[in-house]
């Protein structure tokens, strides 16, 4: 599995909570969220585009920083 780093414009715990719930719904991913740094690490076999789409669902800006 590849670990991807995304930058998500999260401003509060509600935002990171929303991201958490969205990712939990996917089911087959492992992830870590660093709220102060606005970073999300996702370990998954899914391709970057679909992960990106998923993260965008929360209505926040998402940037892909590359594999870690």
């Amino acid at each position, binding site marked *: 599995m590849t670990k991807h780093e995304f930058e998500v414009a999260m401003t509060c715990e509600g*935002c990171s909570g929303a991201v958490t*719930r969205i990712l939990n719904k996917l089911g087959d991913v492992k992830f870590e969220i660093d709220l102060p740094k606005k970073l999300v690490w996702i370990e998954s076999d899914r391709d970057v585009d679909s992960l990106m789409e998923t993260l965008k669902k929360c209505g926040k800006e998402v940037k892909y920083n590359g594999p870690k």
Partner: protein
Amino acid sequence: KVNLCSVALKVEGMTCGSCVQSIEQRIGSLPGVIHIRVSLEQKTATLIFDQGQQSPESLTEAIEDMGFESSLPDGSTTT
């Protein structure tokens, strides 16, 4: 003919103004949604929408899709 309807949905998980804003922007731009007002204090989203294009259920789902918990109010009042 447009058949307008209003509903107040419960929304859990919002903690700040930016959560409110992203919901208002995203849900407010869905087809058939005429007006949306989200209250952080009351944890509700009040919507006016066209019944031909949206339903309270589809709106609840759209909010859940964003990662918030949403439910229809008790004794659902669509007027």
